[in-house]
């Protein structure tokens, strides 16, 4: 059981060894408890906000829930009672019941399932402001969007340090399978369902853009500089990643020495008029964030990219960013089949997946959210795909050298394609 936390040994050592601790590569100077709220004496359960300070002087905050067995029942009761304890306020009104089990391997949070009915996600890394996951799920649930698990509760902190969302609870989608695993297990089966996912994604974006009265969600026009700022930022990322490219990593051959070419290509793609609108969107969209059940597709994890700041994740951007994320994950799935299972993906799988998803998406989504005309949409999409691929390249070089050929192929593919006109 992942929760309550059982802290063994010195706090600093324990925190930095946890899976959810984000900055394992950095040198931690100290770990301090900044806030401690006793949620229950019997069984014991505390809520702690803990600061990890780094050598360079910056810091990160984490949520800990140390306590005894049975502590999670307390948490469930507090959510049910909409209690307020110290600076912590609980919302929901529906007490989760039934057997408690931990969810499997999670990177940045800790989730527990109550009675196969509800799932509580405890955010570990805490930042000031409302968590986009709460905001997004609440917005989508309230507007009857079917492809999201309904919000059933949340809890938050408000005190001297900050205001922050600490955790959210949603309906648990039973008998569902992770879209990523499914693509590896049954590529052709998934292929047939991707138009449905494309349409659901289009609908999600249309719903997210549907309320001009809510300032957190009302669509915005991109500024005149928007595309130039984006291009300049990606251009720097390309320059950086090519500057650090190791000389002898196999798999880099198709792009080695071609940094300038990639930058030129980016430049030529960016000669597209400003268009489309900026909206709230998923922010970290890929096959692994979807579940397929008898009821259809369900979208998960609206937190956005964990590496970005919370303010950054709440920013409105082109919905094509989500689309690019999904298209890149098709490339990953096609290659992972070979890398993880030793079975090559069916011939032409990636192309068909892209087309099936994209055609349905473009048909469904509110057209005012896209740049005018298919060529402009394709160009903007290609820019976002390049941005993703460059990010992936840096990540894989640092973490999984075997996977480097995937982003390399993505970048090489953009170099080969004709610029849409």
């Amino acid at each position, binding site marked *: 059981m992942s929760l309550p936390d059982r802290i063994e040994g010195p706090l600093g050592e324990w925190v930095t060894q946890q899976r959810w601790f984000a900055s394992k590569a950095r*040198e931690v*100077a100290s770990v301090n408890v900044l806030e401690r709220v006793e949620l229950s004496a019997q069984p014991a359960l505390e809520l702690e906000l803990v600061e990890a300070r780094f*050598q*360079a*002087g*910056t810091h990160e*905050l984490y949520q800990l829930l140390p306590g005894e067995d049975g502590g999670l029942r307390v948490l469930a009761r507090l959510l049910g009672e909409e209690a307020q304890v110290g600076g912590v306020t609980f919302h929901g009104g529906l007490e989760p019941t039934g057997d408690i089990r931990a969810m499997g391997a999670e990177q940045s949070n800790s989730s527990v399932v109550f009675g196969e009915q509800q799932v509580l996600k405890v955010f570990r890394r805490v*930042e*000031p*402001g*409302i968590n986009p996951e709460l905001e997004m799920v609440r917005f989508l649930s309230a507007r009857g969007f079917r492809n999201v698990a309904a919000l059933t509760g949340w809890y938050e902190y*408000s005190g*001297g*340090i*900050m*205001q922050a969302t600490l955790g959210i609870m949603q309906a648990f989608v039973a008998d569902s399978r992770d879209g990523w695993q499914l693509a590896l297990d049954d590529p052709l089966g998934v292929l047939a369902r991707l138009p449905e996912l494309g349409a659901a994604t289009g609908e999600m974006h249309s719903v997210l853009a549907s309320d001009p009265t809510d*300032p957190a969600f009302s669509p915005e026009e991109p*500024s*005149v*500089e*928007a595309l*130039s*700022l984006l*291009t*300049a*930022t990606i*251009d*720097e990322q390309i*320059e950086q990643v090519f*500057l*650090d490219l190791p000389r002898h990593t196999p798999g880099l051959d198709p792009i080695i020495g071609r940094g300038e070419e990639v*930058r030129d290509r980016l*430049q030529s793609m960016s000669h597209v008029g400003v268009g489309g609108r900026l909206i709230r969107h998923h922010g970290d969209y890929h096959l692994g964030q979807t579940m397929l059940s008898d009821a259809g597709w369900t979208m998960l994890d609206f937190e956005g990219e964990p590496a970005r*700041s919370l*303010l*950054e994740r*709440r*920013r409105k951007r082109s919905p094509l960013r989500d689309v690019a994320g999904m298209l890149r994950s098709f490339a990953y799935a096609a290659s992972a089949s070979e890398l993880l299972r030793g079975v090559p993906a069916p011939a032409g799988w990636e192309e068909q997946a892209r087309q099936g998803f994209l055609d349905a998406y473009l048909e469904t989504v509110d057209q005012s959210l896209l740049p005018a005309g298919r060529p402009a949409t394709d160009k903007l999409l290609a820019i976002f795909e390049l941005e993703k691929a460059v990010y992936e390249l840096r990540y894989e070089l640092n973490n999984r050298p075997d996977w480097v050929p995937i982003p390399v192929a993505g970048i090489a593919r953009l170099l080969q394609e004709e610029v849409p006109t």
Partner: protein
Amino acid sequence: MNHPGQWFESDPLWFKTAVFYEIHLRGFFDGTGDGHGDFRGLTEKLDYLQWLGVDVIWLLPMYPSPMRDGGYDIADFYGVHPDYGTIEDVRTFIDAAHERGMRVITDLVMNHTSNDHAWFQEARSSPDDPKRDWYVWSDDPTRYDEARIIFIDSETSNWTWDEQAGAYYWHRFFHHQPDLNYDNPEVQQAMLDVLRFWLDLGLDGFRLDAVPYLFERDDTNCENLEETHVFLKKVRKTVDDEYPDRVLLAEANQWPADVVEYFGEGDECHMAFHFPVMPRMFMAVRREEAAPILEILTQTPHIPSNCQWGLFLRNHDELTLEMVTDEERDYMYSEYAKDPRMKLNLGIRRRLAPLLDNGRDEIELMTAILFSLPGSPVLYYGDEIAMGDNVYLGDRDGVRTPMQWTGDRNGGFSRADFAQLYAPPLMDPVYGFQAVNVEAQLRTPSSLLRWLRRFIALRKEHPVFGLGSFEVLTPANPKIFACIRTYEDDVVLCVHNLARSAQAVELDLSWYNGRRPVEMFGRSRFPKIGELAYLLTLAPRGFFWFRLEEDDESA
């Protein structure tokens, strides 16, 4: 009600690692098409500022004003000049800035009001008016005659006769800006209420204009008086008690020893501008020697650890030469103000790029030195693209021309007709908007704008520049300005060549024996530091910034 914590984690020292960006609202972007920049326009450009890496936007005064002193003549502390928008526009702008992780401070003039202000109109109406005592009156225009006249080009006395009042009123700046009487507790209370109004709106602090002059006393020069510090401490306490995480930035154009008084014991202003270091940087680059910078740094006292200097190369005023010797001033005029039109009061009214003959190396070098010094850098709008100035415009308007966004009509600043613009954008072949604009520099990877963004990002990656200790190295080569910054485990060495020629320098780094310098821009590893002097060669006007990393591997 705004909750600061909703946008930012509580951090009372946030301003120490922040990059400030000063904006002349009228000149930034016209969102309504009437020829004047405004809050709506500024809100549209927030993505640009966020991209650049700005942490704090500092706005010049935006209050209703007859505009006889660029808005520093405030006619109503509770409003917004109609050219700039409405209070609602301000609120939208502040929220949008916060959403992007940027804070906002504005100028607040506490010393005086416009003579159009209702308070002054009441005060002059009758000796018995309850507001009479809100200003400083006298029958004798020789009182306080030890106080200098600041605007020597336009004013002959600090007293002006008011026919209606039948008395002289006191003013340290223009005669249309009567000084408020801070000996009156009602005035103090009224000003605290003004602060509360704007902080309630979400503002993150103030740049307090002209603070040394709040009180007057016989037989003094009426500057930096003890009473002024007592009042500012009261302001600070009010802000700390009611509005945590805000900042007060003092404008006190004084010698460092006097300016540090404005920090109190860390219980007065959070920040103050370091005025005297600025002209000395220009002197150093022209004389090709570090001495002027070193001299002023040695004269600069330590400041409380919860305080910070504001450092700048240029701002909306003339490049002030009040805090230099007569000899130094003559030197600065002869080097930097060859056309007499370039002089104003005791200063030079030009922008950064023209001052440095538009030299890219010089601009980068000066920025590097600025960023290496202990303090928070304050950038001036337009300098990031090397905008020029217009010496043919009056007063300080020549350095307040429209921001140059594109090569299109009006430089992309406004959709209004050219004749409607508050001031003509620059159109000369060197600095005009067709040659110098944001759009072009965004697209050019080697542009100054793109370089500055990378440089700001680099500085912000290292809190050492805002929080670290500062130690000047004194190598034998006088043309080199080198310093070491240390914070916790982060040790940074900054070496700058002020000469127009390539230079070699030997630095005594024996204290860091065994560490390896890694150049911060390109991450190139340099030879390890040993017992002997460390030899570096620098290109003309070149500089290196290194991290001194612990290194176990042998060289």
